[in-house]
């Protein structure tokens, strides 16, 4: 079984604020960490490997410092790591990110199973996984909440739907985006961390891809463009309601109706 997990480095805190006067973003330090949702994907991969044997690789796309999350994956038990890093990948939206990852994956060989986290805490779209699957022409299932059965030719999973759970068998090769809580992620092990201290991380740039056309990567390969960033309307409004029970009940009803809860 060859398994690949897509992991991303995200800002440690999403406590960014926009200075209302200058419009400049104020960040709470620049510390980064592994996207918490991706820990579940790594854990899922490691559990499958423990049962069936094989190999767990990780891939990430980002600046050189994203090697940090690959090292973290090593100390959890991942076998190999690849980082796609090139200035020409910068400014990528979902389409360009998933295309770059798909190109990288193709150049790394064949995988039976590709796992993604449910979403990232910075991009927060949950779209990169299904788009990678599309580029690689693989079946995909998102919102995987549990794994029921593992067979030679495929995997049977529970997919969360709005009001029910769909049990589906997906043939290999395929891509799954796993939900939080599918398994409790293990902590990085100190022993593994020391053992893998010098393990090489493969770095791939645009020059290593089959498609060398710069226009398909980074900002150029991104159909969407950020026009501007601004602070949300704050919810600091406060209303104090006095009056009879009848009146308060009516005001409360109207508000709850306006907010579409009834």
């Amino acid at each position, binding site marked *: 079984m060859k398994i690949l997990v897509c992991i991303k480095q995200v800002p440690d805190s*999403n406590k960014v604020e*926009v200075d209302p006067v200058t*419009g400049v*973003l104020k*960040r709470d330090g620049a510390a980064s960490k592994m996207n918490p949702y991706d820990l579940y994907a790594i854990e899922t991969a490691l559990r499958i490997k423990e049962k069936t044997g094989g190999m767990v690789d990780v891939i990430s796309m*980002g*600046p050189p410092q994203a090697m940090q999350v690959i090292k973290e994956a090593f100390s959890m038990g991942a076998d190999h790591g690849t980082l796609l890093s090139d*200035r020409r990948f*910068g400014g990528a939206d*979902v*389409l360009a990110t998933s295309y770059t990852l798909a190109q990288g994956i193709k150049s790394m060989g064949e995988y039976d199973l590709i796992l993604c986290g449910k979403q990232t805490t910075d991009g*927060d*779209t*949950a*779209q*990169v*996984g*299904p788009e990678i*699957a*599309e580029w690689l022409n693989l*079946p*995909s*299932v*998102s*919102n995987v909440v549990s794994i029921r059965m593992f067979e030679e030719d495929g995997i049977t999973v529970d997919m969360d*739907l*709005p*009001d*029910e*759970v769909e*049990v*589906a*068998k*997906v043939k290999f090769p395929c891509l799954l985006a796993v939900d939080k809580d599918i398994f409790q992620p293990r902590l990085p092990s100190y022993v593994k961390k020391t053992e893998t201290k010098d393990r090489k991380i493969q770095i791939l740039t645009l020059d290593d891809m089959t498609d060398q056309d*710069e*226009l398909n990567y*980074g*900002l*150029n390969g991104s*159909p*969407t*463009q*950020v*026009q501007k*960033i601004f602070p*949300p309307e704050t*919810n600091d409004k*406060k*209303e*104090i309601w006095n*009056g009879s*029970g009848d009146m*308060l*009940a009516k*005001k*409360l009803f109207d*508000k*709850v109706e306006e907010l*579409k809860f*009834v």
Partner: protein
Amino acid sequence: MARLIVHQERIPDHQELINICPFGALEEQDGKVVVNAACKMCRLCIKKGPEGAMEYVEDVKKPEINKDEWKGVAVYADHVDGTIHPVTFELIGKAKEMAAVTGQEVYVLFMGNEIRDKSEEILHYGADKVFVYDKEELARFKIEPYTAVFEDFIKKVKPSSILVGATTVGRQLAPRVAARMKTGLTADCTILEMNENSDLSQIRPAFGGNIMAHIKTPNHRPQIATVRYKIMNAPARAESKSGVIVDCDMDQEMLSSHVDVIDILPKAKETFIENSDVLVVAGRGVKKEEDINMLRELADLLGGQVACTRPMAESGWMDAKYQIGLSGRTVRPKLIITCGVSGAIQFVAGMNHSDTIFAINNDPKAPIFKSAHYCLVGDFYDILPKLIAKIKEKEGV
């Protein structure tokens, strides 16, 4: 290739410029400020940085597409076994507003099995055309055939914009379709505005809702956006029908799949208060254990759950797993109504990030009013029964 050029001589203070970038994409290397791979080309550094320090250049321009070939706003009808998810109607309402700006039509794409009769319902909401793909292979949501039908629809109808509900289905279907069409997709938009040139202004929260981003798809069609349930307003259902149903067919071979749906199981009713969108909280203002039933009735009507403060859990009236606060659970529901809760700091710490907070307390000086958005100074024993009656009246229970 579009890129940023750094004019070193125009930077009085490196750190100040580096701090502007929200993505940490500016760094210092050998005494120079450089742009690294984290750059999202948001160009804040150009706008907010020292005059002339950062410059945006585009060497090769991509050819412009002909936007006139793409017309209309399409909505994906989200459903299970023909029961249409209400987000669909909300999106039809939004699509009508958007289409009015450019004088174009509203389309609905409805795919499934034995859904032909059910498609009539959509005509009560003002769509101009409902494109129906009624096929056995589409009985259950499977990613490959659903994407194939979507592609077929887009190629035949060429809609300029497409709205998809951000349900668990929409959130995996929309990206597959976007990648297949090699176009842009903006997730979880909260504001959508159509421009006269048919470009869609898509506004969505980023960084966990701390900032808003305005996104455009200026040179690709269709432009696709997902929108969560209960963000847009559904139009009222008209008595009469309008618009037409268009029966569609496509190559059967495109509908094969590597996914087999084996079973559909009912979902266990969620019991964790952390997962509830709506919470009604019982505090020590609740005099008797059976009075909690009144709160429970309200919570049921609002599709939520009852939670409590610590004294309520300690008294054994409610299980500890329903307790909010420092020594309980942290919750962030869309709506929270506290009843007879004083608002001690240890309680508030577990709920003050809720979207909308209503507090009912008969003491105008109760500290809970510092955290609430709507402060109802009164007796909840008086208010709740009246509120419950009104909701029942509206829902016709």
